[in-house]
């Protein structure tokens, strides 16, 4: 279970302070598939980076199964990122001079998994995200945006994380592949009890999630059955 308590992240730009995450609190049960929508610049990526321990909050705390990230030393934060988190970045952030398989194997290497086992699993994952076998050994910078997106998703799944944080995972995919990725994510949350938090602009994807959040100027609100009607009104 993940608990977010009064999370705040402020940035100073010049003499102005911006608060992309402003007093955000929520809880997610293990195995929940949740989505966050919001305008560009509303703070979605910033919030995910705090949950994934890429960044430290200005104030507030994140508790993972009751353990606070706030007081954790850097070494343990690294371990948390490696074992418990799968991150799908908005800009993929794959290592450009490595092959697709090598990229997917990286988190497993850091986790100390044997080479043969990680190669095997990497190929399985790439097949799951429907990347053709002939592209497994191709260097990342020779793959299309959509293909890179799928490699990024496969990499996030590599260490069977408890929590997957996906920043626009279907943004570069055609409808059909996007559809498939959504199926994959909901299957993970259902079958492996993985908690998944997806940032998306894709209404269809958002509608398939168990819980839907909206981020507006750093403030998070949940769309309940009652306010959903209002939110889906045009405008």
């Amino acid at each position, binding site marked *: 279970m993940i608990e977010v308590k009064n999370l705040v992240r402020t940035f100073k730009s010049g003499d102005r302070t911006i608060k992309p995450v402003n007093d955000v609190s929520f809880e997610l049960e293990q195995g929940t598939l949740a989505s966050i929508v919001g305008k560009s610049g509303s703070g979605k*990526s910033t919030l995910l*980076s705090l949950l*994934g*321990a*890429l*960044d430290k909050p200005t104030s507030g705390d994140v508790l993972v199964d009751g353990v606070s990230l706030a007081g954790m030393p850097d*070494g343990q934060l*690294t*371990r948390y*990122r*490696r*074992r418990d*988190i799968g*991150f799908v*970045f*908005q800009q993929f*952030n*794959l*290592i450009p*001079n*490595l092959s697709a398989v*090598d990229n997917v*194997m*990286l*988190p497993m*290497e*850091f*986790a100390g998994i044997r*080479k043969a086992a990680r190669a095997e699993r990497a190929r399985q994952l790439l097949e799951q995200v429907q990347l053709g076998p002939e592209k497994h050994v191709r260097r990342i910078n020779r793959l299309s945006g959509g293909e890179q997106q799928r490699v990024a998703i496969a*990499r996030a799944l590599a*260490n069977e994380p408890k929590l997957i944080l996906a920043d626009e995972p279907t943004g570069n995919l055609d409808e059909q592949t996007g559809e498939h990725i959504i199926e994959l994510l909901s299957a993970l949350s259902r079958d492996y009890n993985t908690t998944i938090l997806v940032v998306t602009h894709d209404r269809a994807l958002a509608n398939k999630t168990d819980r839907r959040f909206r981020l507006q100027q750093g403030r998070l609100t949940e769309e309940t059955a009652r306010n959903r009607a209002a939110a889906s009104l045009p405008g």
Partner: protein
Amino acid sequence: MSVLARSVGNAFRNRVRTAAVVAVLAVAIGLALSMLVANQAVTGKVAELNASVGTVLTVNPAGGQGFEGGGEPLTAAQAATAAKVPNVSSVVGTKALRLRNAAAAAAEAAASQTGQAGPGGQGGPGLPGGQSATSVTTSLRAAIDAGTLGNRNQSSGTTGGTGSTSQSAPAFSLPVTATGIGAEVDSSGKALQLTQGTGLGNYTASSAGALLGITLAEKNNLKVGSTFTIGDKTFTVKGLFDAGTAFGNNALYLTLPTAQSLAALPGELSSMIVTVNSMENVDAAKTALQTALGTDKADVSQGQRNLQTAVSSLDSVKNISFIAFAAALATAGLIILLIMVMLVRERRREIGVLKAIGAPNRTIGLQFVLEALVLVALGSAVGAAVASFASGGIASALISSNSTTAAATGRRGGPGGFPGGFPGGFPEGNPLGGANQLLTSVTASASPGVIAAGIAAVFGVAIIGALVPALLTARIRPIEVLRGE
């Protein structure tokens, strides 16, 4: 894909830049290795020169060094006096004999009607002034034929008219130098290099054994165990030595008492080889020795006077080459440092990615250190090739510029500075000779061992150079992953 494989891959990510970096590194590493090779060669040479003759003084009878003939011969009592001088660690007496081949001597006598070669004996093996060497006949034949100098020297005492020279010249043969020695050293105080057989055991007792120069033995078809005669006595070859020079090998050694009795001059010495306990005490010991023996009785000379100048100039080459080695090494380290700092900055975002997906700091640091080592390995390979071609040239450039000054100061040592009494002389007596020898040993010592030591030093410096940027990666935070390029 392992850390190492990733590092190798990263090293070749930008081939043009990798080539440029390797080229610059190769120049620095090549220079460092060349300097190390030069330094090792010179260090070895200096040690060798110091060890061989650096602390040896030679005592000759007063006036014995010139052409004029001398005063009184040296005695065993004087050797005892010399041994009591402070800082003197050993005194070895020698007694030199000129051996003439019996048949050749008879032929010469018949041709020129003079029984003996005259006092002009300082040619060839270079006995001091001739006066302290006694001529004895032998069954041995000299291993070398007299050259122009030899003929001139041999004939100077016998012929007045030029007409007879051309007629009698072919009859002359060089004498063989027999030296009685009080220890197993050659006349310059260096330990004898025996190539076969054994030594003579106790050098202060009479013995029918002899040590022969390899060429002399070869000329006379003698092996260890063969016999020959000197005067009316029969000697057995106990061992063969290699003095390294043609004239030096046309010689034989006997025990001191044997030589003295052959000359019928017991207790008399041709020269004394005095070894001083350390290089620093040589000058003081020389003065003390001269005082103790008396200037009218003995001349104390320091055979390596000239050599010392050469050694000190070689010392400066040694220092220069070491500084250059250290500087080139530091340059290689600096190149690595700057390149790696640049690469770390350039790959900031990628380092952020690795951290975001859970790479520990040490894995990332190691990856960068290994990448630096890959570059250094390439640079070393090219640099070693550069060094193997350049080190000879660099070393000789360094040494020739120095040996010119060494030669100039060496010659200022003045006439008579060379004690003539050394069969075979000092090959190093001439500083230019020393430098030339050094050059040969420079090429000889560009050994894999030295190169390997140099490359190890390069790697050591590279690791230090790469450690700084590697530690910088620890400070990059995973959030860099979200920053734009």
